[in-house]
């Protein structure tokens, strides 16, 4: 998935969200690292099913900790399995690890659990008894005497020599030392033969070992996804036939936490975006970028088989997701902000020729002169609206929504009613604005953008003369013949 790049990961913050998964085993973590988005609806439905099946477990504290305890102990011994398959003689430590793997598998297999797609826990009791020939039931491993009568005999001989050692004199010791060295050699040779035989017998189980490890990983990941779903009140994504993204009360957990930490209030995002263009307009500091972020994160999560952070979420998995906003690194590449925007847009338009995607563009052409910028954004909206991808654009410019399929406005300060107090410092204003700002998205048929900028300026205590002058200019522009009016 070459569209699932570092830029998208950073913009959506998905890595931070995935890091919150409570995975128990290295197997689960490794599987998680290999996760990538897909547009295969059958695969996604499977993943959602697996997560849903695990919900009852995570909601039951004692059942959940039972699973967690066992999964925690699974080690990633894929290297040992490969060696075994190739019949490369395993050493005592590797045999110990296989024994423990088999013991854990047997424990897990016998536990009542949901049948998850893609998992199969094989019967490894044969392996356990092979590596526990005396039936001791311990997890430790030793090259037991029971494996070879010859070995048993050699060891008795060795113990005999060792007993004589302490009572012998210096010359006696020397010859006993030599005898002991010879017997030790013989012991090592016989132990090797035993290990070769065991490796041989274990090699037939290798496919089962790998499948079991994969199953344990899947179980771990599904439980972790379910736990996250329960902890954050997530919803199962509904799969649509037609291209769209519909979110009801969606959030971005990291942004929400950050806002609440500052004492603010996070407004969940409710929006319906269909094929073509949806426009979002709103005042500065009005949360438009956050709205795009919520759509991007949840769409990406759903493409990766996760539930969504929303009350409800429906979509058709896109072929790609592109999120163009606040282009970082622009200056390092010798490009202006606008230059970087254009470069990225070119890539997106190319992608659109070969697939249907989800395209999120935040304030395109904000850095250029308003006349050209406005024209460009209108043209972009018109172009994208005629295409099959789902595009969501935020903008400052008036009249763009004429070319779009739908227009949402951030409610902003318009319904807020308050006196403009006599603020000396800016930070008091920022707090007041944050308090009064309503970030709810409202669908509208109007094609104008909200005009809160001047109000915000006056709240910040900017010189009254400047504000009044600005109002004059605004009034004049609206009344003049080449003022920006809605075009037919």
């Amino acid at each position, binding site marked *: 998935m070459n569209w699932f790049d570092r830029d998208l990961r950073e913009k959506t913050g998905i890595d931070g969200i995935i890091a919150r998964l409570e995975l128990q085993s290295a197997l689960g973590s490794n599987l998680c690292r290999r996760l990538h988005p897909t547009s295969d609806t059958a695969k996604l439905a499977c993943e959602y099913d697996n997560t849903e099946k695990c919900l009852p477990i995570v909601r039951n504290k004692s059942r959940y900790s039972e699973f967690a305890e066992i999964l925690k102990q699974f080690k990633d011994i894929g290297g040992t399995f490969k060696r075994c398959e190739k019949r490369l003689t395993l050493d005592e*430590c590797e045999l110990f690890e296989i024994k423990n793997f088999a013991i854990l598998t047997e424990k897990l297999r016998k536990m009542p659990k949901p049948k998850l797609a893609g998992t199969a826990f094989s019967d490894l009791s044969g392996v356990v008894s092979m590596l526990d020939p005396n039936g001791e039931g311990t997890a*430790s491993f*030793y090259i037991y005497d029971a494996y070879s009568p010859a070995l048993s005999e050699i060891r008795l001989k060795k113990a005999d020599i060792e007993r004589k050692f302490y009572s012998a004199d210096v010359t006696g010791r020397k010859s006993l030392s030599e005898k002991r060295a010879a017997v030790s050699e013989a012991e090592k040779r016989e132990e090797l033969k035993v290990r070769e035989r065991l490796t041989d017998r274990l090699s037939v189980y290798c496919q089962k070992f790998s499948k079991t490890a994969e199953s344990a990983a899947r179980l771990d990941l599904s439980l972790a996804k379910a736990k996250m779903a329960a902890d954050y009140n997530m919803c199962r994504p509904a799969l649509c036939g037609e291209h769209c993204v519909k979110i009801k009360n969606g959030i971005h957990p990291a942004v929400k936490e950050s806002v609440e930490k500052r004492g603010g209030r996070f407004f969940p995002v409710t929006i319906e975006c269909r094929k073509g263009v949806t426009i979002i307009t709103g005042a500065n500091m009005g949360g438009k970028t956050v709205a795009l972020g919520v759509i991007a994160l949840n769409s990406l999560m759903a493409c990766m088989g996760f539930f969504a952070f929303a009350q409800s979420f429906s979509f058709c998995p896109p072929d790609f997701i592109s999120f163009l906003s606040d282009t970082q690194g622009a200056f390092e590449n010798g490009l202006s902000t606008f230059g970087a925007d254009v470069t990225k847009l070119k890539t997106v338009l190319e992608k659109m020729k070969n697939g249907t995607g989800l395209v999120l563009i935040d304030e395109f052409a904000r850095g250029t002169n308003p006349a050209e910028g406005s024209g460009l954004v209108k043209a972009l909206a018109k172009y994208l609206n005629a295409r099959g991808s789902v595009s969501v654009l935020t903008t400052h410019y008036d009249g763009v929504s004429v070319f779009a399929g739908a227009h949402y406005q951030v409610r902003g300060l318009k319904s807020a009613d308050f006196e403009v107090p006599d603020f000396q410092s800016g930070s008091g204003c920022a707090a007041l604005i944050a308090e009064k700002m309503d970030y709810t998205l409202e669908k509208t048929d109007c094609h104008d953008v909200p005009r809160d900028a001047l109000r915000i300026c006056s709240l910040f205590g900017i010189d009254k003369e400047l504000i009044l002058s600005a109002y004059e200019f605004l009034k004049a522009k609206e009344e003049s013949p080449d003022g920006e009016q809605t075009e037919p």
Partner: protein
Amino acid sequence: MKEDFLEQFKKELLGCRAVAITGSYKNVGKTTTLNFIIRLLSGSEIGITSVGRDGEQIDAITKTSKPRIYIGGGAVVATAKSCLLESDASFEILDMSGIGTPVGEIVIAKSKSPGFVELAGPSISQQLTAVCKKMCYYGAAPVLIDGALSRKTFALPETADACVYCTGGALSCNVGTLIKKTLHELALLSVKEADAKTAALFDMTMNEASVAFCYSDRIEKSSAKTSIGAEKEVVGRWTDDLQAVFIKGALTDRFISGIMDSRVNVKKVRFVAEDGTKLLLTEPVFRRFILSGGRLFVRKGIRIIGVSVNPVSPDGGRLDFETFKSVLEKDTQIPIFNAKNLWPDVIE
């Protein structure tokens, strides 16, 4: 006499959770001492590990032949995988610790028969504590920790509750010189533990500071990251109501000398360091401090249960052990012994 000492020493060892074998220098007989203790405790289920790697066949630096560790059956050993598998003892694998070393993952295993083994344990303090805990869990009592040279700080006192201090001709063959050096080292390691109230204050305060000042009604933390160079601040804060100075990390000559030179009345204030291994003080400076009435304590004391002496020096010299012992005994209660004398048939 010899039997009494062995009996007493054995009892002492069995009463410990973990014993560190530390040395003042290379070739002072740490490994021989370890082998001797292993032999002494045969029949008990002991644990053995090391700080870092030791017990190699030829000392990598001095090229003298180093004795290897000889263990009996039923010993719980924590060492790197390759060392374990090369040993001529056979082992029952108990645990793969997940702790890596340059020579492989550390395995905890129980010997099923006697044999020679090379020890390569963890070299990071927290890992060592974790490994010792696991060994205790598998029944090892006590755990013997072979400390590598100049890393005596690692095992003590977080992990080990007692220590056997090794010294010998390698440090000096002159009885007088060695006595002086040994007594000084022992004095530093045996500095008394602070009382419970002071210890609690130390724990509470020193999480966030390296130097702190206890007055009669408050504690003030210094912004200094180490005591090195902080002596000026100490002198500056020396008021009538200063009761104690807490120091985390190394306590150096410069620090103590700096305070002594300012002519403050050191009798009035208690100095509390973390433990004996942090006292990097030379004999003259320490003596001057104590003679002036200076009071030094540590948060955690170290119990030295024996001094092991290797009279032989790598360059062929020999220390007069009997004289050394009789002179040293006048100034310390800690038992002094020569492992090879007591048990010439220690297998190496």
